[in-house]
């Protein structure tokens, strides 16, 4: 396992999550929690990718970890659990794939495109990866919340 890469990805995840936390107007005192959430997401995703999991499966595992960590720890930070969930997973949203998919579709609209079949397949592949990855992140985040709400409702 490449530990240097894992540390690098984890740090980048923390910086990206904290940076987007500022954009979402999260207060400075809560930003370390955002950074921790983003770091956990990228740590889990990188380890899973290291074991040759697909991006979608690794993103699902990472989102699930963040969702459970945020809910189980019952953080006392002045930030909602939903905000912390979302901010931590923002670095995993496949914006780059989305842009490449749409660029591929744009390329098909020029007169007499060269390699149209290959371009279309690549664009569809990126589109599916975007859809499945966002689906995986959203589902991974929702499961802990739904499970723990059911548990609370039964206890109540």
């Amino acid at each position, binding site marked *: 396992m490449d530990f240097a890469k894992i540390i*690098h*990805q984890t*740090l*980048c*995840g923390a*910086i*990206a*999550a*904290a*940076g*987007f*936390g*500022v*954009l*979402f*107007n*999260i*207060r400075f005192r809560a930003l370390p929690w955002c950074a921790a959430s983003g770091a956990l997401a*990228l740590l889990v995703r990188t380890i899973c990718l290291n074991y040759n999991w697909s991006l979608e499966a690794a993103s699902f595992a990472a989102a699930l970890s963040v969702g459970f960590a945020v809910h189980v720890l019952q953080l006392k930070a*002045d*930030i*909602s659990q*939903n*905000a912390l969930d*979302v901010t931590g*997973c*923002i*670095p995993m*949203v496949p*914006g*780059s794939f*989305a*842009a*490449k998919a*749409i*660029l591929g579709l*744009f*390329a098909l609209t020029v007169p007499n495109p060269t390699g149209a079949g290959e371009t279309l397949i690549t664009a569809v592949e990126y589109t599916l990866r975007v859809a499945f990855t*966002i*689906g995986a*992140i*959203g*589902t991974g*985040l*929702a499961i802990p919340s*739904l499970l723990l709400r059911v548990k609370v409702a039964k206890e109540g």
Partner: protein
Amino acid sequence: MAALEAGRLLMEAGASARSVDEIVARVARGLGAERVDLRVGYASLAITVGIGLDGITRMRKVNHIGVNQSLDQELRHLAERLAPAAMTPAGLRAELDRLVTTTPRHSGIVMAVAVGLACAAFGRLLGVDWMGTGPVFGAAMIGQYLRRELATRHFNVFLNATLVSFVSSVIGGLGARYAASQTVATAMIASILLLVPGVPALNAQNDILEGRPTLGSARAVWVVVILIFVTAGLWLGQVVIAEGR
């Protein structure tokens, strides 16, 4: 109407439909309602409140949906403080006005630097080399500053996305090329990631999973359209500097 106003503020602050539903119900009960039914739409909210055998329905328009977690958090605290029938509508309105005016926002410069750092980190995650990381930071910082300036002038949100995407991708691409980066095309993409609507995308998924497919679909369509406008700006940038095509 005061409870609906709280719901409108929550929607515009980027809250999920479940949060809006829970908080508005709590606030309405704080005003004395015994029954609360809320319909959360993309551009409007409708509420029916009942006391005894009487009921009343009201609707409220929702403006542009952004993300403001501090205001979201303040509204949650307000709802938690409210005991049933503990506040008058006038008192609640005054409290909501106070929250809107006093909840602090980060300054434009702080936001721009934070977004620059975030996009630089994104760039590293995407494989941008160190030579290209500095230009991504600068391009995203300028892009965020421009986006905020245009937003304060009520510039159309879709055209804003295209313009910012174009400017950021050109600056990021030219900067990376000047710095002899080997990953200029990826640096251009990393420079525009500040525009990717991550929160609405995840909220869309969440709303559908929680039984609100109409709202979730509306959010998803908005996400797709904004991505098309963002990519159009990137495409123009690639044409202008002849990179990545």
